[in-house]
């Protein structure tokens, strides 16, 4: 069941002076899950979310506060502090919320006193009462409050249930830092961080038991050596894997930089066609290089067949010899050798005539004997004749195949080189331009390109090395297992090592399977929400969103090409909203978002079509939507659209007082239009 905030009572919190209440869940229509809090900038809309976070977790800082030190974020109302110098002012937030059939009433308060230009703050009270489904109420021990609250709404999740317009936009900017932000958020949210820490920890345990097992005198020398080798190979494999990840980051960074430069260069009309040609050539060079690499690795397949052609004369000679003997009837022999031997021994031919030594008949039969081989040799000769016949038939084709492959490879390399040379010429045309800005940009681009080539080469080497190491590790593990079995090594050390390996391998397998599935699930969910929110034009141009290996988002057009760089600001916002919704829904483990969703000015750069889609869709995917809106973005048009959903439950205005404080005024939803532009 979902978490729903029923009401919040603020007391001297930020600009909310005195005791003020917002009821989120309408008593009359509790099923209407949309709350609108409306007010100009600075009236305290974000302050409401800050109140929620403070009440739930005792935290005062939000992610949007950036580097502002926590102790500079004040919670107590300034007017009250000013009007009551030397007297502690009680600042509190009380929140009532429901979850899973339980109703929670949580109060958190501090007392703040101002003396001169100093402020003193002290924790006042934390109280959590739980109304259970059976009607009983219990008070939670203050030490258990954080754990109880965390079970309702995990603190790590909170950043994804408030999002403001800036955060929305930041999340989908293309750039390494933003991708990392998304990646860390997703990993943190879905517990992948904990899983990965568990893998590292279990790996550490494996190494520790490996060492103990190697040092155990009962462990055979061979086993100890294998364990050491395995340890070494695993360490190297980890290091190479890390390097592969680093190179992937570097590659993305250089690609981003390259795109930015290309974008700038593209503005220069006079060289645009040259730039396009150069980019085309680069793509072709990349494809040809890959083709050449594949072709090179396939050469080894033909080594045997080509080498056999060297001894073709021998094969022919032997084939011809056996063939001749076949024609003569020696193979298979017309008369079997054992029969000839019997004839000579008995001195009688099969026709009944006597065979005497030193007669012509005797010598004929002896010649028969000489020419005959025993049956196994005859079979061997016949088999060889057959095999050689087939091999000789194929030989010409084998040679032709080898020649063809060599020529093809050369052609591919040659074509790639031609394009490289062409690009060098284009380079000098572009770089040699009279415009210094073009030349400088182009030099920067060349340096990045050189760096990319270096990165690609190193990445290829690392990948081959990883494959080699993985093979070696697998072989060593098999040999260790066999050694354990044959040596019947059932010692304590061996048992511990075996169990540690089993736990680590299980965690790794789960990680691989889990992360692959989660990425696919998030991608599907993001696409589903995105397509519900985006306008018709966006739906046509943008087919789907996928989560890359590093958990960053990639927008694909209908030809599955990357479109992220071309996405408009409004579409980015929609994408971000879709992404966060998908994440929240995955974290909930449900198809809807089971937490209240605070959106602070989400409409900023959205077109009216997008706004309407958002208004129609969000109430269906979130258990509660608290929309914090300014007068410029929540107008009668949006209000009308929201009314149509039938989900709008409560409406509050944040009104400024002359002292700069805010008063919360509840209005009837039906009267909302009167207050809006």
């Amino acid at each position: 069941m979902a978490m729903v905030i029923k009401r919040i009572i603020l007391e001297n919190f930020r600009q909310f002076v005195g005791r003020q209440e917002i009821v989120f869940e309408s008593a009359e229509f509790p099923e209407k899950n949309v709350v609108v809090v409306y007010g100009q900038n600075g009236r305290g809309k974000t302050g409401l979310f800050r109140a929620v976070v403070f009440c739930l977790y005792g935290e005062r800082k939000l992610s949007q506060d950036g580097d502002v030190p926590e102790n500079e974020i004040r919670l107590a109302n300034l007017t009250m502090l000013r009007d009551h110098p030397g007297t502690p002012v009680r600042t509190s937030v009380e929140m009532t919320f429901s979850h899973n059939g339980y109703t929670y009433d949580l109060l958190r308060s501090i007392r703040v006193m101002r003396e001169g230009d100093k402020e003193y703050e002290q924790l006042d009270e934390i109280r959590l009462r739980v109304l259970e489904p059976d009607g009983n109420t219990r008070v939670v021990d203050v030490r258990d409050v954080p754990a109880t609250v965390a079970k309702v709404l995990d603190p790590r999740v909170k950043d994804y249930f408030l999002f403001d317009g800036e955060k929305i936009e930041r999340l989908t900017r293309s750039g390494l830092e933003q991708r990392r932000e998304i990646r860390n958020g997703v990993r943190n949210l879905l517990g992948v961080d904990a899983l990965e820490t568990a893998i590292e920890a279990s790996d550490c345990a494996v190494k520790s038991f490996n060492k103990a097992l190697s040092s155990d005198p009962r462990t055979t020398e061979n086993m100890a050596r294998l364990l050491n080798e395995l340890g070494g190979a695993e360490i190297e494999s980890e290091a190479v894997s890390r390097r592969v990840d680093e190179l992937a980051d570097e590659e993305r960074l250089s690609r981003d930089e390259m795109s930015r430069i290309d974008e700038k260069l593209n503005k220069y009309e006079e060289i645009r066609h040259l730039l396009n040609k150069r980019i085309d050539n680069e793509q072709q060079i990349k494809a040809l290089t890959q083709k050449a690499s594949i072709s090179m690795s396939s050469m080894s397949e033909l080594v045997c067949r080509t080498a056999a052609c060297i001894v073709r004369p021998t094969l022919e000679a032997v084939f011809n010899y056996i063939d001749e003997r076949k024609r003569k009837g020696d193979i298979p022999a017309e008369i079997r050798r054992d029969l000839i031997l019997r004839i000579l021994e008995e001195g009688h031919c099969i026709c009944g005539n006597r065979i005497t030594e030193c007669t012509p008949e005797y010598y004929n039969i002896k010649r028969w004997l000489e020419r005959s081989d025993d049956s196994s040799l005859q079979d061997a000769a016949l088999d060889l004749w057959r095999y050689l016949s087939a091999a000789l038939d194929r030989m010409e084709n084998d040679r032709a195949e080898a020649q063809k492959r060599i020529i093809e490879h050369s052609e591919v390399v040659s074509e790639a080189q031609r394009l490289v040379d062409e690009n060098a010429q284009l380079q000098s045309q572009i770089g040699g331009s009279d415009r210094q800005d073009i030349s400088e940009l182009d030099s920067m681009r060349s340096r990045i390109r050189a760096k990319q080539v270096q990165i690609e080469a190193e990445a290829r080497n690392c990948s081959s090395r990883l494959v080699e190491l993985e093979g070696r590790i697998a072989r060593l593990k098999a040999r260790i297992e066999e050694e354990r079995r044959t040596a019947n090594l059932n010692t304590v050390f061996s048992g511990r090592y075996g169990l540690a390996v089993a736990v680590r391998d299980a965690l790794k397998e789960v990680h691989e399977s889990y992360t692959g599935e989660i990425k696919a699930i998030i991608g599907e969910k993001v696409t589903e929400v995105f397509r519900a929110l985006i306008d018709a034009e966006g739906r046509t141009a943008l087919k789907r969103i996928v989560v890359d290996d590093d958990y960053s988002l990639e927008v694909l057009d209908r030809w599955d090409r990357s479109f992220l760089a071309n996405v408009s600001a409004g579409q980015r916002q929609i994408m971000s909203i879709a992404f966060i919704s998908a994440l929240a829904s995955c974290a909930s483990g449900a198809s809807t978002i089971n937490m209240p969703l605070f959106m602070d000015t989400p409409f900023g750069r959205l077109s009216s079509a997008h706004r309407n889609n958002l208004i129609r869709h969000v109430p269906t995917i979130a258990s509660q939507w608290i929309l914090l809106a300014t007068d410029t973005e929540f107008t009668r048009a949006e209000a009308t659209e929201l009314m149509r959903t039938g989900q709008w439950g409560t409406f509050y205005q944040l009104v400024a007082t002359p002292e700069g404080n805010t008063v919360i005024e509840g209005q009837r939803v039906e009267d909302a239009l009167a207050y809006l532009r």
Partner: protein
Amino acid sequence: MSSNQTCEDSGVPAFIRDKLVLYPEPVRRLATRAIELSESHKKQAVCEQVVGMIRSQIKATRDDGNGD
């Protein structure tokens, strides 16, 4: 992570728990515990705990007469 977890539930996401079910005891139990500990502890601390749990497990197995 899910808001639907009760006090008795492990802190391990349902997705992961479903996959660990396929592994035999005690691998499943130890792996689950390692993840739970990793939610709030650093790698080294978790490693020490895992080492301890494995030692206990092997000792318990051998005490049951399954060892040499």
